[in-house]
């Protein structure tokens, strides 16, 4: 008998308000190891907030949240700072606006955290970084500064930077929303390859084709709750909720 597989992310009854606005209203949410979970939903539905709660960039007010077997939030109480920092090293984050460090080269961006936090030597960190940059197709850009890169290249560097910490799970916060349409594909290809290697991923996105193709589970959020979740075929072809249908229709007519 195998022991039961524990989820990498496990949220129960998670709540979060910004002032009077309840953004998360009791979220139950699991991401299993090697699972790709894509979160979709209209803007303002709370999906980015949920994602940002998962590495403590937002503090949930109530409920519980476990990441990589560690309790990040319990009854609204947050993990202390030192433990939070340690936890974040295992949780990779990719932002909509890249947030590359403009004063460091591409190589510097990818090596700074492993060197400072994992205690890698410059040579070790460089070797890992070059391998990862190779993987995202940017080996020839190691010495470039972020300011000289295209949006798609920046986001691929950002993915390499997160991977360099060897995280157990990767969080993607609308990673292609700030990109010109012709650059979206190169980022999605990298993410798809990553999924293929068995990386555990939670992806907030508006790329429905990506969700359909790569997701193991799609969760639909609306007004701070998870409306429904299931395999992409089910969500896209036989959605249970009228709200889901409305949303999918709105997205498909937009495209």
């Amino acid at each position, binding site marked *: 008998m195998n022991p039961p597989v524990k989820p990498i992310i496990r949220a129960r009854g998670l709540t979060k308000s910004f002032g009077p606005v309840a953004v998360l209203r009791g979220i139950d949410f699991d991401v299993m190891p090697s699972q790709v979970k894509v979160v979709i939903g209209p803007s303002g539905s709370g999906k980015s907030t949920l994602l940002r709660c998962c590495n403590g960039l937002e503090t949930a007010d109530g409920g519980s949240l476990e990441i990589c077997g560690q309790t990040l939030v319990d009854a609204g109480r947050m993990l202390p700072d030192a433990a939070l920092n340690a936890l974040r090293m295992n949780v990779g984050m990719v932002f909509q606006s890249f947030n590359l*460090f403009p004063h460091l080269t591409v190589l510097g961006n990818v090596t700074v955290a492993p060197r400072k936090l994992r205690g890698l030597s410059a040579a070790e960190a460089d070797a890992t970084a070059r391998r990862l940059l190779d993987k995202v197709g940017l080996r020839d850009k190691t010495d470039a500064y972020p300011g000289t890169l295209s949006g798609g290249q920046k986001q691929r560097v950002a993915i390499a930077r997160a991977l360099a910490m060897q995280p157990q799970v990767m969080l993607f916060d609308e990673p292609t929303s700030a990109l010109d349409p012709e650059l979206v594909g190169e980022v999605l290809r990298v993410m798809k390859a990553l999924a293929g290697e068995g990386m555990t991923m939670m992806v907030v996105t508006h790329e429905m084709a990506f969700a359909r193709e790569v997701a193991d589970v799609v969760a639909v959020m609306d007004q701070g709750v998870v409306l429904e979740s299931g395999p992409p075929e089910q969500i896209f072809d036989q959605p249970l909720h009228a709200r889901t249908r409305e949303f999918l229709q709105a997205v498909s007519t937009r495209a």
Partner: protein
Amino acid sequence: MDFDFSPVWSGWSDLAHGALITVEVTTGAIALGCVIGLLIGLGRLDPRRRLVFGACTAYVSFVRGTPLLVQLFIWFFGLPHFGINLPAFFCGVVGMGMYSGAYVSEIVRGAIQSVDRGQMEAARSLGMPYRMAMREIIVPQAVIRMIPPLGNEFIALIKNSSLVSLLTIADLMHEGQKIISVSYRSLETYLAIALVYFVLTNLTGLALRRVERKLGAGGMLQ
């Protein structure tokens, strides 16, 4: 109209020595001002740390809100009332350094807060503690943004240093006045002094532009 620069020429070595003292006082004050400014500026980043924030804010509002000359006089003429007799040069450097620190702190704070919030989020989400994120990511980006306003501050300080002549410090201004007191050639002497200050301030401006270009070459400016 007659111009007679001969008292200036014959007193040139005193003026040169005075200029050296001006450079020394100002350099010391700039160094002290930068250290104080960095600490106070960092202390004013987070209003939720009430004690630190409050103390730093009080410092800035007092030091920035009272005249430099009054502060210098308090150091030099006021403290002796408590039996504290400090050397004039020390009073000049510390008085000006503390004064400048208040302004530098606002430059530091402004530059740090102008760095995009996403930079801190990215650093923290990699697992960096707050201080490391500041040191490795935020401050290096802020430094280059500090340079133009720091240039203004340094130049203002060079000019304000003429006030220390009133603390018996033999700076450029002081030496000039000595020449005037025996020759009565005030216009010529003040013009000569003005020229020296002009050279000092503009050399400083040039040097800082150079530093800015050098740092900016790293692609730090997007």
